[in-house]
């Protein structure tokens, strides 16, 4: 450490240059992490917040369109409720609608139809909960879009009027659209395209999109599917059915993987050049009797100091940047665990890059110290 720290100070311009590259990578990493958490929130936070273990869609429904195409009936819900390990099962309806509020605000909503009183019922942080036949409990984010409690929304084409009665405590969105919970009965009418004053056909009266299942880890999804004629997936798997979710997350993951690879390469390349530059110096140290371990440890200490310092600066910068993005409509959410994990990964990969360069130290022959400086 004696030499490592003094060299850091002596060659600070070189180390600062390399450190700023790593810091910029860390900034980018934080922004991508925030963007990816933000997109996940935007895409599936409505599903994440549901107290659900699994969704059972109608048998044969393809996952990527399950939330818009699947239709299940009351019988399937009842069969699921009887499965071992299932604590509760309830019909769950989803559909996307375009609406306009009485104050002229156009807003798209993901309607989640749930039976008032079932375990799916949302808690309203403001206003009243679910109950009124046409009452909506909307995501907090809908307030940013211009909705207020008491607003009356008119559903395009069908003409149904719905009233905002409550607001959830946090963000509930699905496929980048704000979620509005409403009683399943009202959802069924909208889903069937039945306008005010028209009659719902009996066959449609017990339909929903999926069976929402709550249970412990012992649920046998395949057995339930066989009994109820459904295809069930865990909640996490069902995220893939949210519009755009898979494409967005895989794109961001790809960028992040590249970023990690680049940072390992940058650090590795820097330490390769640095080590080669110091070849003669290291040979002198070896001749003086420095153990290989001494030199390896010294190099790794340098790498660790540079990496932690520059990544700390980069994370702070990225968080600052992210703060500026709040309220601009860019989906951005910094989550401490995700950023911590990514930072540690950057440090580890940087150390790996440095280590592959520094092991060359071990190959330096102390004999090179004799003779002139080459």
């Amino acid at each position, binding site marked *: 450490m*004696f030499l490592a720290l*003094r060299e850091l100070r002596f060659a600070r311009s070189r180390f600062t240059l390399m450190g700023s590259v790593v810091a910029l990578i860390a900034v980018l990493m934080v922004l991508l992490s925030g963007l990816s958490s933000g997109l996940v929130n935007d895409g599936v936070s409505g599903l994440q917040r549901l107290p659900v273990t699994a969704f059972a869609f109608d048998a044969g429904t393809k996952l990527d369109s399950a939330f818009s195409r699947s239709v299940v009936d009351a019988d399937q819900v009842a069969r699921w409720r009887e499965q071992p390990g299932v604590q509760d099962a309830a019909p769950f309806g989803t559909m996307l609608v375009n609406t306009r509020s009485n104050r002229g605000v156009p807003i798209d909503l993901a309607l989640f139809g749930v039976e008032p009183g079932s375990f799916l019922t949302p808690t309203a942080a403001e206003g009243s909960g679910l109950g009124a036949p046409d009452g909506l409990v909307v995501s907090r984010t809908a307030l940013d879009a211009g909705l207020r409690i008491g607003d009356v929304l008119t559903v395009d084409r069908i003409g149904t009027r719905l009233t905002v009665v409550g607001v959830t405590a946090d963000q509930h969105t699905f496929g980048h659209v704000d979620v509005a919970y409403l009683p399943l009965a009202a959802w069924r009418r909208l889903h069937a395209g039945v306008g005010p004053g028209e009659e719902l056909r009996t066959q449609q009266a017990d339909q929903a999109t999926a069976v929402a299942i709550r249970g412990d880890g012992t649920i046998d999804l395949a057995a339930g599917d066989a009994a109820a004629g459904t295809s069930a997936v865990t909640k996490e798997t069902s995220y893939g059915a949210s519009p755009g979710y898979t494409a967005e997350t895989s794109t961001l993951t790809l960028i992040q993987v590249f970023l990690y690879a680049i940072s390992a390469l940058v650090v590795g390349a820097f330490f390769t050049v640095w080590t080669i530059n110091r070849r*003669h110096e290291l040979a002198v140290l070896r001749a003086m009797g420095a153990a290989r371990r001494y030199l390896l440890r010294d190099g790794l200490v340098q790498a660790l100091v540079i990496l932690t310092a520059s990544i700390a600066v980069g994370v702070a910068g990225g968080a600052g940047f992210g703060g500026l993005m709040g309220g601009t409509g860019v989906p951005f959410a910094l989550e401490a665990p995700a950023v911590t994990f990514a930072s540690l990964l950057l440090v580890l990969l940087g150390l790996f890059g440095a280590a592959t360069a520094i092991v060359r130290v071990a190959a330096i022959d*102390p004999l090179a*110290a*004799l*003779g*002139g400086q080459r």
Partner: protein
Amino acid sequence: MTTTERTGLVLSGVTLRLGDGDSVVTALDHVDLTVAPGELVAVVGPSGAGKSSLLAVAGALTIPDEGTVTIDGQDIATMSSRARAAYRRDHIGFVFQSGNLLPALTALDQLRLVGTLSRRRADDRDPAQLLADVGMAHRADRRPHQLSGGERQRIGIARALVGRPSLLLVDEPTAALDRARSHEVVQLLAKETKQTAVATVMVTHDHDVLEHCDRVVEMIDGRLSAG
């Protein structure tokens, strides 16, 4: 250190061959050399005569193909690479051409670095005192690029002496110096050799400085003869 008697450096029948296959060069050819504690021996000879190989073998950097190398009665040719590194650290001082100091360190830190190479260095000489002994106390905070060639060489000598070595190996110490500085540096080597009772081997091209040495041997084609 209490069990070993100071008997200096003894090379006997040392042969070192370099290269392999068709291009084997005999760098050292049955070399015998004894350097007593407190004795400064100069090794002269043309380039390629094997002077550097002699330093490499005596300094436990290379193992000879034949013969024995003992320092204070201990055979260093049979040690493992790791043991030789530890032995160099504890018993051998190297002075390199143009000092070969570390660019990042101040003069004082060059000396203090030696103490960091191993954990138990209670015996070490005090770096600040040693720097004063070689007349460099006023340069303690300077880095190599702020020092003259003679100053660098003095600090190089001081660095080699920090661990109270039994053997001091000096490689062309005056290669980059003018005449006056060369004399000063070799005088310093002679003085320290006497005072610290270290066995010193100095390889040099510089016949001007031989007057300061106790003995001069000449090396030609890997063979050693009294100069």
